[in-house]
């Protein structure tokens, strides 16, 4: 099974790239692959390169990789409750990274942890350092995770659906926080989500993934304003906009996301596609330029527009 199948993109210093797709499209696996966190076996990175400042992460020795993880590339996960250790205090878990990567002593690490927790907006951080994860609310836990991710001032933050489990008001707080921090410490962000709304306000570039491949990629404004892949177009059209009325049917993409074990020949989206032509069922369309920095993988991309 190819969970992620030959994807390529670049991330510039300080930029945000959004990775959008439905469950099972490979967006999380792609992030775990960058971090080399795919359990092997059964998983395996068959080929490809992850170049970080010119170094191929996939060729690093495990202990060199460990120095990159957390310190230079940090990751925050969707579910803070399962990624925090329930029997250790939140403070301990953040201090652990600092002591490991930044050679701090306990006292310094503690002071820095308090600083970080305050920075991510946890009120009374001094008193929270010794709390256990279950004593935190969902939003606070997610913020603690972010504090942990940011503890070593990483150059890249990979955020895998960090706000999906949270309410919209808390989500808005977190998004704002990440933007501010990005401004402050100049880190680049890979934001993985299924929510096209968040990406619109956050990212400069968007990669739309479907069945393990990037099907469309480009600057955020041209992806939303002028999509050239029927899947992107369908996703955008299926969202209720301010104009749609009750009993006015929402556009819906027919069918279901494909099973990665049993992908159709040709374009994986073809069975659900409105624009399908015979060629789609036989040949996989390449990702080709449709505009400035904007690529789409569709045989009929010229026909597709909003």
């Amino acid at each position, binding site marked *: 099974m190819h969970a992620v199948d030959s994807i390529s993109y670049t991330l510039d210093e300080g930029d945000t790239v959004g990775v959008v797709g*439905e*469950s099972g499209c490979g967006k999380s696996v792609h992030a775990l692959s960058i971090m080399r966190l795919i359990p092997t076996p059964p998983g395996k990175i068959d080929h490809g390169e992850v170049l970080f400042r010119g170094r191929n992460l996939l060729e690093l020795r495990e202990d060199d990789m460990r120095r990159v993880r957390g310190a230079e590339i940090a990751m925050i996960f969707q579910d803070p409750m399962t990624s925090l250790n329930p029997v250790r205090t939140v403070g301990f878990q953040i201090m652990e990274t600092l002591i490991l990567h930044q050679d701090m002593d306990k006292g310094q690490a503690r002071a820095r942890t308090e600083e970080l927790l305050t920075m991510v907006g946890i*009120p009374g951080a001094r008193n929270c350092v010794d709390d256990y994860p279950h004593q935190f*609310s*969902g*939003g*606070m836990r997610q913020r603690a995770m972010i504090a942990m991710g940011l503890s070593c001032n990483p150059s890249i933050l990979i955020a895998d659906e960090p706000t999906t489990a949270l*309410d*919209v*008001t*808390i*989500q*808005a*707080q977190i*998004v*704002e926080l990440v933007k501010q921090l990005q401004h402050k410490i100049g880190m680049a962000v890979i934001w993985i989500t*299924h*929510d*096209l*709304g*968040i*990406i*619109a*306000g956050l990212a400069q570039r968007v990669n739309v993934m479907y069945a393990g491949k990037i099907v469309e990629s480009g600057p*955020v*404004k041209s992806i*939303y*304003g002028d999509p050239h892949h029927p899947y992107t177009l*369908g*996703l*955008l059209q*299926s*969202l*209720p906009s*301010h104009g*749609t009325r*009750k*009993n006015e*049917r*929402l*556009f*819906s*993409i027919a069918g*279901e*996301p494909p099973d990665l074990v049993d992908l159709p020949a040709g374009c994986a989206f073809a069975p659900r596609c409105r624009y399908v032509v015979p060629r789609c069922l036989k040949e996989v369309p390449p990702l080709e330029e449709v505009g400035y920095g904007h690529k789409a993988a569709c045989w009929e991309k010229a026909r597709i527009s909003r």
Partner: protein
Amino acid sequence: MIEVATNDHNTPEVLLRVKNLKKYFPIHRGVFQRHVGDVKAVDGVSFDVYRGETLGVVGESGCGKTTMGRTIIRIYEPTEGQVYFDGTDIATLKSREMRELRRSMQMIFQDPYASLNPRMSVERIVGEPLEVFHLANKEERKQRVARLLELVGLNPNFMTRYPHEFSGGQRQRIGLARSLALNPSLIVCDEPISALDVSIQAQVINLLEDLQEQLGLTYIFIAHDLSMVRHISNRVAVMYLGKIVELTDQDTLYANPLHPYTEALLSAIPVPDPIVEEQRHRILLEGDLPSPANPPKGCNFSTRCPRKVDICSEVEPEIVEVEPGHFCACHLVQPAAATS
């Protein structure tokens, strides 16, 4: 207290009237399981649902919207208050009478994986309500199940299959078929789309709307996705910490929100348009939802409210009809008649 909005030209028929409904979950502590307090999950809500409409209920997790939905159809026993369904107060009905009434009120659940018994075939799942009420013999039941599956857009040949053979969207359809088996008039939809993929959500929403039109259903649609609620609802109630803070028709709510919480909630919805997002001003709330076991004094929202004044942390605001059909519980919002 909410009274019925009297509409001059046509008074819609009230199907469900909820009056001062409360649901407290007791907290017991110590060796003797002393009753030390209550989680006030639903704390005095009142509203009407008209026949054939969709009432959307929005709010953050923990605000009591699911508990309210469940208390209305008496999956939970209400602590206090009345629920009139078609004129009968069901909050005090005996279980036998309630059982009969359950036929007309059904529920669909958030998690399409947990709400279907994995050991039962689709035929048994969808046919079970008919079996429970002895409504059909085996042959009739089979036909009825086939018709129900067709109604929700599934192939009737699938009825011998088991839930694990279906995707999330299809399972939600099975749940819907089951809830339709007894021809209910009211369906409480508890976050029916939040576990589904984006491309599948629109399919289920369209199906719900089609069925409403065909069968004259009334929905209470509980969700936290405000853009979907806006699309499907006629009127929307906004809940915060066990109380309804604002209730009005969907256009007014989105165009002219009165309660500061509604404003913040609406401004937090991300808009899938980078150009709009660039220019938007967000109202960012501070802090988290307080615990319903220990709600703040005065207005529940006072701890996070950007427009808080002194009275807010002292006196709890009553929900009042500010304009015809527009209810709001805030000290800063006064009825139009009083100010003009």
